[in-house]
């Protein structure tokens, strides 16, 4: 671990205690970078794999936005890169739907679940609770490699002759169950299901590890109520995942059976392409219940880490304690509980019992209360702060703005009577992209910019960060704000072309505009990727241990911590993570003992 010792700067009181390092054995390239059991390296593996997936998923959205923006044009280069999927330079409907499906699947699961939770739960949990690593580094490593396997299977499905799954990321049967229903329901669908099964295993291994670590490996003095909000949010995220992903697994396995073994879990009374199917007695609704029992908590699996990280970053950069810490924890808790009780609000128009529907309306709108508490607490945290606009802080503020915008439209959709009208229109597309997609991405970006110095010992380039932020937030609003109007015009989502419709063909210009902005925003993300990889090797070096003046424990480690995180003893915790601006001190890290004359809050 000589490299660690070399980079520890003079300020580190533990410098020279290299002998305390747990691992003396020589690390090979394979054990350090490939099959690493160091939570920090696994976090980076999740992050970079997530970034590759984000690039693919984002590229797909650009490609299908070309179709939506320019439905009459042909682009010969499309055929050059996509072959028979874009014969004559125009995307085929089958492939359009395949790309829409893969865009959703990739972004929801591979990027905003694995890439977000996988990265930050791995990176921050041991560092912020004061642990040398996860409870089981081995399972942690397996978690990544199951994700990697899932990625390989999903990626390979892009290259099969009949194309990847194309029934939408919700893969409702019978469309996804019947080979005859679409070309994407052939081998591509089997690969999707196998990939998701592997993904769920990965997620469970990770989640169990996160929960165990947070509950058992906190350092001395780190009571649960002293945990930074990042850890609380990652904790609830893991609980949500562990309790809900298995349900999706069972749903997916039953679907595999229906597809390949002739069972009738989801199928009944079907005539397809003139063929009378023998299946009787199944219910397609059953799948929707199983899917959304995960599917809704999944939304919070994506959102909670972004909330936690934004809370932390807003507090650090306002130089002020987070307002209402206990209320923040309580609202995270109530969101986590309610997340399990609202799944059927995705099914208001399936013909479900209206009384049952009304219960789900009540519970769904109830979520707005803890969400409102969080927003008001963030606003009050900013109030009378001394705010530093680092790129991370800008992304955290952007997160709050997007969370407000997208959250409020949830009040429309959660109200079943309005949902009858707005269901599956562009209003929904706008809603969930803003609140779940872009907002969570902003939380993720905030996290990357904020903890990059801890990850790589170097800074990301600030100017590029600012350009990245401004292009992305302006672009995000330009793309998704006008979509609400398309939704209010009744325009259905998942349409390849609106030319044949008298009711929906008046948004040609707007669709073109949205597609153009989407392209610009995508290009701006490439700027971020370049910044990310360039800065790993050539970024400005971090020279102080605690560059942001933050209170949490990760900033007490050496600038480039080795496996085991602290060269000496793990610091003891004496206070909560938010003693900023207290008693005239700009900040008081958690490991500083409480002074005798210190005021109590």
């Amino acid at each position, binding site marked *: 671990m000589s490299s660690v010792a070399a980079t520890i700067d003079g300020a580190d009181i533990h410098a020279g205690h290299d002998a305390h390092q747990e691992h003396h054995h020589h690390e090979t390239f394979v054990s350090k970078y490939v099959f690493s059991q160091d939570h920090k390296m696994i976090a980076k593996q999740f992050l970079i794999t997530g970034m590759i997936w984000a690039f693919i998923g984002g590229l797909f959205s650009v490609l299908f936005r070309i179709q939506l923006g320019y439905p009459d044009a042909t682009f010969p*280069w499309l055929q050059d890169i996509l072959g028979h999927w874009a014969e004559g330079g125009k995307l085929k*409907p089958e492939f359009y*739907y395949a790309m829409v499906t893969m865009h959703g699947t990739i972004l929801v699961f591979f990027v905003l679940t694995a890439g977000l939770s996988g990265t930050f739960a791995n990176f921050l949990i041991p560092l912020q609770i004061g642990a040398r690593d996860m409870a089981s580094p081995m399972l942690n490593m397996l978690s990544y490699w199951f994700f990697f396997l899932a990625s390989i299977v999903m990626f390979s499905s892009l290259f099969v002759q009949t194309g990847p799954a194309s029934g*939408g990321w919700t893969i*409702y049967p019978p469309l996804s169950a019947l080979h005859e*229903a679409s*070309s994407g329901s052939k081998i591509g669908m089997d690969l999707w299901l196998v990939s998701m099964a592997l993904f769920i295993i990965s997620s469970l291994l990770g989640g169990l590890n996160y929960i165990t670590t947070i509950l058992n490996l906190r350092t001395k003095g780190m009571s649960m109520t002293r945990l930074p909000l990042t850890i609380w949010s990652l904790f609830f995220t893991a609980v949500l995942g562990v309790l809900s992903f298995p349900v999706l697994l069972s749903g997916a396995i039953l679907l595999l059976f229906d597809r390949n073994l002739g069972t009738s879990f989801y199928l009944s009374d*079907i*005539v*397809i392409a003139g063929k*009378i199917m023998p299946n*009787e007695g199944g*219910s397609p609704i059953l799948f929707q219940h199983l899917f959304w029992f995960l599917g809704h908590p999944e939304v919070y699996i994506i959102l909670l880490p972004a909330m936690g990280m934004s809370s932390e970053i807003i507090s650090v950069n306002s130089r002020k*304690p987070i*307002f209402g810490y*206990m209320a923040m924890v309580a609202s995270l808790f109530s969101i986590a509980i309610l997340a399990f009780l609202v799944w059927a609000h995705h099914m208001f*128009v*399936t*013909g479900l019992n209206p009384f049952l529907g*009304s219960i789900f309306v009540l519970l769904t709108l*109830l979520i707005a209360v803890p969400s*409102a*508490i969080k927003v*008001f*607490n963030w606003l*009050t945290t900013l*109030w*009378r*702060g*001394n*705010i*530093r606009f680092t790129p991370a802080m800008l992304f955290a*503020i952007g997160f*709050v703005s997007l969370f407000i915008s997208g959250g409020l439209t949830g*009040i429309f959709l959660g*109200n*079943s*009577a*309005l949902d*009858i*009208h707005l269901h*599956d229109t562009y209003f929904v597309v706008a809603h969930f992209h803003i609140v779940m997609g872009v907002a969570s991405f902003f939380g993720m970006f905030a996290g990357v910019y904020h903890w990059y110095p801890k990850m790589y010992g170097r800074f990301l*380039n*600030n100017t*590029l960060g600012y*350009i990245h932020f*401004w292009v992305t937030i302006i672009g995000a609003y330009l793309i998704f704000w*006008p979509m609400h*109007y398309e939704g*209010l*015009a009744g325009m*259905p989502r*998942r349409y390849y072309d*609106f030319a*044949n*419709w008298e009711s*929906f063909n008046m948004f040609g210009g707007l669709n073109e505009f949205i597609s153009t902005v989407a392209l610009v925003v995508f290009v701006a993300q490439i700027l971020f990727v*370049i910044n990310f990889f360039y800065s790993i090797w050539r970024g*400005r070096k971090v020279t102080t241990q605690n560059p942001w003046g933050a209170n949490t424990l990760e900033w007490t480690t050496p600038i480039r911590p080795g496996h085991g995180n602290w060269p000496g003893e793990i610091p003891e915790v004496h206070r909560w993570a938010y003693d900023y601006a*207290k008693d005239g001190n700009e900040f008081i890290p958690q490991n500083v003992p409480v002074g005798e004359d210190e005021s109590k809050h």
Partner: protein
Amino acid sequence: MKVLLPILILVMVFVIIFQIAKASEYVSVLKGEDKSNKQTNKVNAFMLIAFLILGLLGAWWCNDLYYDKTLFVKGSASAEGTEIDTMLYITIAVTGVVFVVTQVLLFWFSFKYQAKDDNKAYYYPHNNKLEMIWTVIPAIVLCVLVVFGLRTWFKITNPAPKNSILVEITGHQFAWEARYPGTDGVFGKKNYKLTTGTNPLGVDFSDPFSHDDIHIGGTDIHIPVGRPVKLVINAQDVIHNVGLPHFRLKMDAMPGIPTTLWFTPIVTTAQMREKTNNPKFVYEISCDQMCGPGHFNMRGVITVETEEEYNKWLAEQYKKPEYFSVYPDKAPKVADTGMLKKLDTLTTAQMVKGAK
């Protein structure tokens, strides 16, 4: 070349941006990071407040551009939809106020409390009273919205009125089929295993109720204005959805699980044509549930007409029940008029009664 050029330009732009970014980093190191941080802080604080103002103006402008294209201006074509529109307005008003207030506070606080040398952050960790206030107020507001919403929801999802016209609509990849119950007002039984090319809906013609049922392919469903219509919704292969944007309604079509949806049209197609100044206007049925590669073209049409026009149309349809087209030998000869005569002598009142 055509592809290469934009890529080249893009790469050039990237390189330039990147060089500027690198240079500004060096400059900041040379100038002293503290000083340059202060500058960028000021710039970003200003940008945030500018973003707020331009954003709000932009939202206004966007509304100006696109409001006329939403369904609001046309007004709902069904009585139930009118209530949904009212609810939408209320919800937009409530959320609109919250939206403006919170966004203004967010960006204004960011701007106002930007880091300054003489400024010190204020240690303010919690205030139970404030937190109670902003827990209780949203809860009350949401209760109001829930009560409004559920009243409308139950009104719409309650069983259809007794005098509703019955129409069965069946979705398959990628079209809709409609069936009317005929003069007896009862649909003949169906069994999906009986589906053939000539009997595409799988009607069980051993059921005498099926003999007068009317099957309308290529879906142009006619319904009269002012009377409730109950749709019985089926799907043959995958899940579809009967989307009726102008009536503000939709309902899934599930294979094996019939669903229903009822509404009262209040504006005829002709009236809507006048209202929208669009002679091509029709009420369209859009499939709103992803159903395969042809999903985007799964279109149906509903024609809302006056009672008189409807009855005339219906009388025409009664002359050609599906039974006769499946079993042409059973069809009455043109001269043989037993059934046709009976039909012609039916009064409107009788038909209406029959159509229950």
